[in-house]
């Protein structure tokens, strides 16, 4: 018993399950708010099962409840989903998926699965992190969406349970192990600053894309000039097992 348990409960799966629970519970809030925004039960369930990217789903119902048109809801949700394309590239580079697995992996390529996977040191742990967080969030998010849709607005405020605090801690916990040398710390502080400045100036979903663009630009510039230093620095260690 203890040996099977320790095989299965690795740091990556524990991390994946924790983040799946914290995020999945938010589904209650989504389900309740979606019904309040005027969607029916099937539309609400379809958004969680098919769209399955929380930010886009909240944007879609948010536009509708604010009196916006369905086409505007479509645009807001799609814009917010652009970051998942960036995540797909990261996961492909990091996990080396087989082509047959790609359609399934794509559907669970979201903030949580990407972050959990990229937070791991070894290739097998990155796989376990991706699938545990991805499938864990998928199952719980859909389950709790249905519950929220049926129970209504009484259950709708995730802040009352401290889930918004849990989300902050969850993402910080994933970032933390990477802040071991000067350059990633500078990158993290700069990224946080860029995001904070971009939030009031752009529509939701765009700040993270602006931040990603700045990070890529910075990496391309520093990568050209300091290649020998970065290849042997802390920054590359997490990617060493990829071959």
């Amino acid at each position, binding site marked *: 018993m203890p040996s099977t348990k320790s095989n299965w409960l690795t740091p990556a799966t524990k991390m994946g399950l924790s983040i799946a629970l914290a995020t999945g519970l938010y589904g209650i809030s989504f389900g309740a708010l979606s019904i309040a925004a005027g969607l029916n039960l099937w539309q609400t369930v379809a958004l969680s099962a098919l769209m399955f990217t929380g930010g886009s789903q909240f944007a879609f119902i948010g536009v509708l409840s604010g009196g916006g048109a369905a086409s505007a809801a479509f645009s807001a949700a799609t814009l917010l989903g652009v970051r998942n394309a960036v995540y797909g590239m990261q996961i492909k580079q990091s996990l080396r998926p087989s082509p047959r697995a790609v359609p399934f992996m794509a559907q669970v390529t979201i903030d949580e699965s990407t972050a959990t996977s990229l937070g791991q040191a070894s290739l097998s742990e990155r796989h376990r992190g991706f699938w545990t967080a991805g499938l864990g969030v998928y199952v719980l998010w859909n389950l709790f969406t249905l519950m929220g849709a049926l129970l209504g607005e009484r259950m709708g405020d995730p802040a009352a*349970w401290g889930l918004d605090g849990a989300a902050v801690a*969850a*993402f910080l916990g994933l970032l933390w192990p990477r802040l071991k040398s000067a350059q990633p710390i500078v990158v993290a502080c700069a990224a946080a600053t860029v995001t904070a400045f971009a939030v009031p100036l752009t529509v939701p979903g765009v700040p993270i894309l602006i931040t*990603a663009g700045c990070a890529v630009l910075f990496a391309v510039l520093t990568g050209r000039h300091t290649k020998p230093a970065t290849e042997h620095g802390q920054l590359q260690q997490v990617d060493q097992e990829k071959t």
Partner: protein
Amino acid sequence: MSELSWWLLGACAAAFALKISGYFVPRRVLDSPLMSHVAATLTVALLASLVTMNAVTSGQELIIDARIGALAAATIALIFKAPYLVVVLVGALAAVALRATGLAA
């Protein structure tokens, strides 16, 4: 089916198309030394951005509320090398405690 349902299904299809499009970037491009440097930098930047979005934003507004307390509590837990689940729980408890005591919204 209503017009809204068609837009909804279209948005779902667009979301999947975006997710899978990243996987179509050729491996050759992703494997260059420059790209692994870009990927490592991008990961840190994306995580820091997600922390910021979850800690201090609400829609298009910057807001200081109980989530800042959660961020501080989680930082302390991480400094003391707490396990991941403990860090997440500390974040949730800090937010609940700050709201219950009326110290933060």
